[in-house]
C-alpha cells in the first residue's frame, strides 16, 4: 500500500514565504510512521543517557518507535544497545531494569548471552543434555546490536545503521561547544525527572528552540533574561536554538554557586546556549551546569521528556542540586500547556502549518526545513524504481 505523501514544498521555502509542517505530521498515523523512519530511525536519535547504566552489568529495557531495546553497560565498561530479543524465538530478554551478574539468560529456553552480546550457551539445543548442534553457529547468533554513540552523556542511536558517522553529522555543534568539552557529572537521582506530555515530540523541539515565547510563558525570566538579550541559533540542515547574553548562575540562599566547568573561557561568563540537536535531543550549556532532554516519542500525540542535569564536579551540594532541579522543572512545566495546546490545534482543518515571524521564528523554521528535507530524502530513496530484470 502506498504511503500518503504530504506536500512539503511550502515548508522548504525561505522563512518569509514558508509555512510550517502540515497537520498530518502531528495527527495522521501513516504520515507520522513515514516521518518516524525518515527523521528518527534513519538519523542519530537520542535514546537515553549513559548515566542510566552507571555500573558494569547494569541493564535497562527501553522501547523506541515500538522497538524493544536493551541498554547495557557491558563487562568491558562499554555502553551498548541491543535489540532486547533472543535470537531463538524472539522472546523479550530483560523485562525490568536490573544488574546482569553474569550472562543474559533468556527466560524462555535459557539461551545465554554475554553483556557484549555474544551467544555463549544454547542449552539442550542438540537434544537433552547436548548443548551444541552442527547447524547452530553461535558466532552468527549474537544479540542484534544497534549502532550507538555517546556524546555529552547522551546515548544516540541510529536504528537504520546507515547514517553518516555521528562526529560527521554533529561536527559543527561539537566544534561550537568545544569550550564545554569537559567531563560532565550527572547530578544523580535528584537531578533527573520525566515529564509526560500530550503532544507530538516535534512540538517540544519547536517550543524549546525559540526565545519568542519566553516573556509570555516564562515571565519569571523577564527580570534577568529579557527577550532582547537572546539571539537565534540557526544552522541550516543541522541544528537550531537560542542563546542568551545575560546568563546568571544559580545561587543558593547563602550565595553559594556551583563550580564552573574548568577553563571554560571568558565568553561564557554571561552567555549560555540552548540547542535542539536534531531530531530529538535538547541541550543546554552554561558555565556551571548543563542539561540534556531526550524526547522519547510514545505515540503520535504523546511524548516523554527525560530531563538530566549535569555539573562540573562530582561532589556538588545535594541541597543546591535539588533546588536547581526544582527550578528547571518549574520552567519546563510552564511549557506543557503550550505544546499540548498546539497538538490539539493540529486538529483544526484550517491550520496551514502556520505563518512564521521572519524575525523570531528562524530556529523553528530551521527545524521544519530539516524535517522536510529528511523526509524528502527518504522518499527519494524508497521510491526509486527497482532495476528492471534482464
Amino acid at each position, binding site marked *: 500500500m502506498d504511503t500518503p505523501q504530504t506536500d512539503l514544498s511550502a515548508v522548504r521555502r525561505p522563512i518569509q514565504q514558508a509555512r510550517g509542517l502540515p497537520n498530518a505530521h502531528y495527527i495522521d498515523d501513516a504520515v507520522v510512521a513515514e516521518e518516524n523512519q525518515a527523521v528518527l530511525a534513519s538519523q542519530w536519535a537520542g535514546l537515553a543517557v549513559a548515566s542510566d547504566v552507571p555500573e558494569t552489568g547494569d541493564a535497562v529495557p527501553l522501547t523506541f518507535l515500538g522497538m524493544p531495546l536493551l541498554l547495557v553497560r557491558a563487562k568491558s565498561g562499554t555502553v551498548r544497545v541491543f535489540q532486547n530479543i533472543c535470537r531463538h524465538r524472539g522472546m523479550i530478554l530483560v523485562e525490568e531494569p536490573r544488574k546482569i551478574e*553474569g550472562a543474559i539468560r533468556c527466560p524462555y529456553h535459557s539461551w545465554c548471552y554475554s553483556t557484549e552480546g555474544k551467544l555463549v550457551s544454547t*542449552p539442550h539445543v542438540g537434544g*537433552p*543434555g547436548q548443548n551444541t548442534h552442527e547447524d547452530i553457529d553461535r558466532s552468527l547468533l549474537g544479540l542484534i546490536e544497534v549502532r550507538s554513540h555517546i556524546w555529552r552523556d547522551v546515548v544516540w542511536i541510529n536504528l537504520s545503521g546507515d547514517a553518516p558517522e555521528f562526529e560527521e553529522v554533529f561536527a559543527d555543534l561539537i566544534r561550537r561547544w568545544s569550550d564545554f568539552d569537559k567531563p560532565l557529572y550527572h547530578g544523580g537521582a535528584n537531578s533527573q525527572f520525566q515529564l509526560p506530555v500530550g503532544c507530538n515530540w516535534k512540538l517540544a523541539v519547536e517550543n524549546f528552540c525559540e526565545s519568542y515565547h519566553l516573556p509570555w510563558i516564562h515571565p519569571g525570566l523577564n527580570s534577568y533574561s529579557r527577550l532582547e538579550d537572546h539571539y537565534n541559533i540557526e544552522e541550516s540542515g543541522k541544528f537550531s536554538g537560542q542563546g542568551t547574553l545575560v546568563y546568571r548562575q544559580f545561587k543558593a540562599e547563602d550565595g553559594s554557586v556551583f563550580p564552573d566547568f574548568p577553563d571554560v573561557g571568558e565568553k561564557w561568563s554571561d552567555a549560555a546556549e540552548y540547542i535542539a540537536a536534531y531530531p530529538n535531543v535538547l541541550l543546554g550549556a552554561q558555565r556551571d551546569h548543563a542539561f540534556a532532554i531526550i524526547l522519547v516519542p510514545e505515540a503520535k500525540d504523546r511524548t516523554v521528556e527525560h530531563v538530566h542535569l549535569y555539573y562540573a564536579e562530582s561532589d556538588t551540594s545535594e541541597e543546591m542540586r535539588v533546588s536547581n532541579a526544582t527550578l528547571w522543572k518549574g520552567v519546563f512545566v510552564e511549557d506543557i500547556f503550550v505544546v499540548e495546546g498546539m497538538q490539539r490545534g493540529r486538529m483544526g482543518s484550517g491550520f496551514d502549518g502556520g505563518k512564521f515571524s521572519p524575525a523570531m521564528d528562524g530556529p523553528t523554521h530551521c527545524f521544519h526545513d530539516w524535517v522536510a528535507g529528511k523526509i524528502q530524502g527518504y522518499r527519494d530513496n524508497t521510491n526509486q524504481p527497482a532495476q528492471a530484470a534482464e
Partner: protein
Amino acid sequence: MNDLDQRLLAAHDAEDYAALVGLYTQAADAAKDLDAACFYLTHAYIFALEQNHPDQGDLHARLKAHGREE
C-alpha cells in the same frame, strides 16, 4: 519425590539461582547415566553462567569433556 527434587522445586519457587547451581550439580553427580548427568549439568552450568557463579568454569569443563558444550 525425593529430598533433592523437593529442594530443587523449592529453590525454583524462591528463584534462588545460586542454590540451583549446587542442587543441579548434586543431581548430575547422582544421575544413573551420562545423558541424565549432562542434562542436570547443563542446568547447573546455565544458572552458574547467569549468576557469574565461581563453579561455571568447572561445570563448563565437565560438559565439554563429554562433548556437550563448545
